[in-house]
């Protein structure tokens, strides 16, 4: 082999390593800045216990936004996860027909639908007719965003379970639905939970579908029929004000959000590892 070809090969290899590193620079910088700028903010007294205060008045916090995020994502999960899991079970257990093909296609397309358009949809359906903003409408928008993720990850997880388990159940005289829901689904639980967690992480980080559904709220509100704030809305609004202390709150809320999302993601990775180990044993 001549030297020039070897040199080109070495150069290309080096470039590839460099590219992989370049890809991680933004991640490192975003995390670095969120931590260094967010830490001072979350250490302020009352950051986790108080609600927002006007710019210039110390002691404001994001308690109302944390509650809002948890409640809205919780409601969206209660709607999207059961529907998505059953839909995913259908695709894995009966997924050869044309109907299943349409469901799969719709889920794949829906994953890429712009979240702001889904926010407009929730507004038209649940805000405009009732003439007031509500956390319910935001939860609906978030549920639409979560649904395709849950469907497809559930399908993948359930399809991984070997057919022998189903046959064993059917041979023992179990009804088909019992086999699916009480035998196969529990075996696939880690994978299904992973999908649900990823969907929760996605919903927690969404801002656009909340803008004209829940709108935001400066006060503490636990009633989903009214407006609520969320961590993402705090980041968005406080980043775009000219006040330094509001900007600091934005970084603090961003830190809380990033920690939440990363915990959910790493947690799902841990759960998935158990699924792979389990599937090996079956």
């Amino acid at each position, binding site marked *: 082999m001549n030297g020039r070809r070897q040199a080109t090969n070495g150069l290309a*290899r080096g470039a590839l390593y460099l590219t992989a590193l370049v*890809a991680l620079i933004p991640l490192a910088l*975003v995390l670095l800045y969120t931590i260094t700028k967010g830490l001072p903010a979350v250490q302020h007294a009352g950051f986790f216990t108080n609600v927002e205060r006007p710019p210039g008045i110390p002691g404001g916090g994001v308690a109302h936004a944390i509650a809002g995020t948890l409640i809205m994502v919780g409601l969206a999960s209660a709607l999207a996860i059961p529907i998505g899991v059953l839909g995913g079970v259908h695709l894995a257990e*009966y997924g050869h027909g044309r*109907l299943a093909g349409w469901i799969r296609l719709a889920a794949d397309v829906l994953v890429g639908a*712009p979240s702001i*358009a889904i926010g*407009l949809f929730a507004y038209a359906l649940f805000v405009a007719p009732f003439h007031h903003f509500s956390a319910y409408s935001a939860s609906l928008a978030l549920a639409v965003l979560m649904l395709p993720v849950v469907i497809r990850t559930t399908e993948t997880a359930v399809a991984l379970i070997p057919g022998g388990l189903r046959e064993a159940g059917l041979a023992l005289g179990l009804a088909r639905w019992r086999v699916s829901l009480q035998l196969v689904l529990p075996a696939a639980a880690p994978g299904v939970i992973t999908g649900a967690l990823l969907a929760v992480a996605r919903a927690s980080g969404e801002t656009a579908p909340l803008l*004209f559904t829940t709108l935001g709220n400066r006060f503490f509100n636990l009633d989903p029929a009214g407006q609520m704030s969320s961590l993402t809305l705090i*980041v968005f609004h406080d980043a775009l004000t000219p006040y330094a202390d509001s900007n600091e709150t934005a970084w603090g809320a961003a830190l809380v959000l990033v920690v939440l999302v990363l915990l959910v993601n790493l947690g799902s990775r841990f759960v998935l590892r158990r699924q792979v180990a389990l599937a090996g044993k079956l």
Partner: protein
Amino acid sequence: MRAAADRFRLITAGTGLVAPLALILIVLVLAQQAVPAIAAFGPGFLTGRVWNPVTLQFAALPYIYGTLVTSLIALLIALPIGVGVALFLAEPGHPRIRGPIGIGVELLAAIPSVVYGLWALFVMGPFVFRTFEAPISERLGNFPLFGGPARSTSFFTAGLILAVMVLPTLASVSRDVIRAVPGGLRESSIALGATWWETTWQVILPAARAGIFGATVLALGRALGETIAVTMTIGNRFQISPSLFQPGYSLAAVIANEFTEATAPLHTAALIELGLVLIGVTLTVNLVALALLRATAQRVRPA
């Protein structure tokens, strides 16, 4: 028992059908709500350059322009890096380095867009302005592409943060495509004495070309629809400027900014029509991407 089995099948099919129904309902509801604007402005809505809530004149060209320009900048930057990362991740060997980079790319996808927006607004934008935009536009300002005065919130800043955000999509889908290239191709090439680079450039990448194109189109769909990070970095100025360093506006950004402040029904309808245009384009783009990826998967699968 047979009846119960069928009932279970029907019930789960019903829950599965929620996804296509939601999709259809979203498009229908937005179309219905946009009717006043469609009736008032017709096709001129897409080509006009006036957006005036006071005189109720609405046309969307500058928003469409901003959406397209920022997405194209994002793809131009993210494509080479994304394919590089995909090659790296699909490569056999080096699992110790590959693992952390794979996790890193997944975490890149997990960061909420509002956090990217925040970082781009306060850190990346000003940095890019100081070190890149301002010097270039001072020296090469005669080129329309780099015309000043440069701003830290601009088409370029928004495109750059979009590049970061679509990178994980591009990298992970391309990785799957590259992994699906039959191993025999790589082995034959290496057996013929080709180096790793020659194998990659002349065998692997051509075989994976259609799939990588599919991944790029998928990333385009993500970039077109991204709202919050663009709203925070594009500068929100209603103009069509050839200069990448000047502020602009995008379809998603104007909906985010004006929707709750729109009082006239026609203004609301016009914003919803923007949403309809946006979802129509992204759905089409996604369908094309999925078709490309499925065609590749079928072609590559061993018979």
